[in-house]
């Protein structure tokens, strides 16, 4: 048995996956006690964005519906948390279920007209959602604090834990992210998840298998919005301040960009895309102080050109190449393969 054959073995692969997961979890738990508060804060941002990107990934990557308006759901999650904590004085953990419920319901609501819209039309309508969000937030200043925004007290760790603020926030985001990723993983492997992917691949064929298109597509929108809402709550906790300008169209586009860079249709791609989104601007700043936007855009274009399947797609390709037998002659195909096999 060569090492390649050993790596191809499903049992080995399963153990490898568990080992990688445990190692990653170990690093994730160790990191906040090793790095400086600024670095820990950056990691927290990566985790928060990863949740939002993952949510959009469920909708766009797995269900084939595009949204340029996920920043709106992010904003609603953030504002729900801020308003309940600041205006109503709720404890920070209690706002989570409320924010999830509200964004779920709103996502469901947007999902209904989305049933009749495809591709560019859906992109345009969701884009409008992102555009109207800041003005609406300014308009209802009684709840939202208007253009001034809302300041909230950042959640503090219970004294007995001895955790610093940055460590506590990081761990909260980590717990949320693990829950979000585990749920997404299960969803994608479930009956409904298969139906979601089938719809992305071929709506008509999915329908002829009895998939209820309307139900699955609206649910995908609702879950996806709920993920963005959760990310919004975490954003409020960590930043301690929300204002309409935090949730402009740039946020929606950034989430979509991170999804595509990370890799559509990949769960882990969301984490990679989020890291790209958080770290690329600082790299871009180093490259060109005068115009970080230009450097950011250029790096984005280069990234898409070099790995069109996203970082996750690139990783999958490299892994596949590693496992491929070294330059063996093409194996003979067995079974009923004598026909031309042409696609109609």
């Amino acid at each position: 048995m060569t090492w390649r054959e050993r790596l191809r073995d499903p049992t080995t692969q399963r153990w490898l996956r568990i080992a990688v997961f445990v190692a990653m979890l170990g690093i994730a738990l160790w990191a906040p006690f090793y790095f400086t508060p600024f670095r820990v804060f950056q990691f927290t941002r990566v985790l928060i964005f990863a949740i939002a990107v993952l949510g959009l990934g469920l909708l766009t990557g797995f269900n084939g519906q595009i949204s340029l308006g996920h920043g709106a759901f992010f904003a609603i999650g953030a504002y729900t948390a801020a308003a309940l904590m600041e205006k109503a004085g709720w404890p920070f953990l209690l706002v989570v279920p409320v924010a999830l419920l509200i964004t779920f319901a709103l996502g469901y609501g947007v999902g209904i007209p989305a049933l009749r819209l495809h591709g560019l039309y859906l992109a345009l309508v969701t884009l409008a959602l992102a555009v109207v969000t800041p003005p609406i937030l300014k308009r209802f200043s009684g709840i939202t604090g208007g253009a001034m925004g809302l300041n909230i007290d950042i959640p503090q760790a219970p004294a007995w834990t001895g955790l610093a603020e940055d460590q506590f926030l990081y761990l909260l985001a980590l717990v949320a992210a693990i829950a979000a990723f585990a749920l997404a993983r299960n969803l994608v492997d479930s009956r409904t998840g298969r139906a979601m992917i089938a719809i992305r691949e071929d709506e008509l064929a999915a329908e002829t298998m009895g998939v209820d298109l309307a139900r699955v597509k609206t649910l995908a929108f609702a879950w996806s919005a709920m993920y963005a809402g959760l990310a919004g709550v975490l954003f409020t906790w960590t930043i301690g301040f929300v204002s309409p300008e935090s949730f402009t169209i740039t946020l929606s586009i950034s989430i979509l960009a991170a999804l595509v860079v990370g890799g559509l249709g990949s769960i882990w791609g969301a984490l990679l895309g989020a890291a790209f989104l958080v770290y690329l601007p600082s790299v871009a700043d180093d490259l060109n102080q005068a115009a970080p936007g230009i450097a950011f855009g250029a790096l984005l274009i280069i990234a898409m050109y070099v790995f069109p399947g996203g970082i996750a797609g690139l990783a999958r390709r490299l892994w596949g190449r590693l496992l491929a037998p070294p330059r063996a002659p093409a194996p003979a195909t067995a079974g009923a393969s004598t026909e031309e096999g042409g696609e109609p």
Partner: protein
Amino acid sequence: MTTGERDLLLEVRGLHATYGQGAVLHGIDFDVPTGGVVTILGSNGAGKTTTLRALSGEVSTRGSILLEGENLAGRSTEAIVRRGVAHVPQGRGTFVNFTVEENLRLGAHLRKDRDGVRADMDRMYEHFPVLGERREQQAGSLSGGEQQMLAVARALMLRPRLLLLDEPSLGLAPMVTRELFAIIGGINREENTTIVVVEQNARLALDLADMAYVLEAGRIVMAGTPEDVRDDEAMASAYLGYAV
């Protein structure tokens, strides 16, 4: 409901079908006996595919489509699938990014009986051994014949009362087509699945069927047993493109 000799699973009366402005079917009538195989023959553009699409609610129709007395006309595709009508569309429509096994699971989307689904998957691997060998492979890596088999197996996972097959031989080599039809015939006998098959390859379809209809420009021009159709030389050369 009986016609005197056999129970009818499906009774179609005065079926019209339109795409936008263009009418494709102009009021066709046909019967499908329970447990039987009915073939609909005809040249390109006669309306064969449209007939199947009308049965599964994918085009707008007029007329009645009675499945054991219940009218399916005007219902959504999903509702029709729920009533046990499985459609294997032309060009297979397998999900190329899913594995063979996942495709079969998707076929059982409406079923809740996990153990039954597992047992049926194993049964499909018996009917189609090549699928059993390739169960972890992505459907896109299968040959055309294997994909067609997968499409049929996936439709059967629904445990349909009525299986609609649209041009199963399309793009397949003669040998593979014969193998596929032999398996389909076996499924009809062993599982008592009622089948409507639309085919350009009239010879094969007539061997399989116990009732045949010939469609021409959206109208049924002949109905009878396979022997009747074979013996009608004018019919054979005019509509089926071959003389027996």
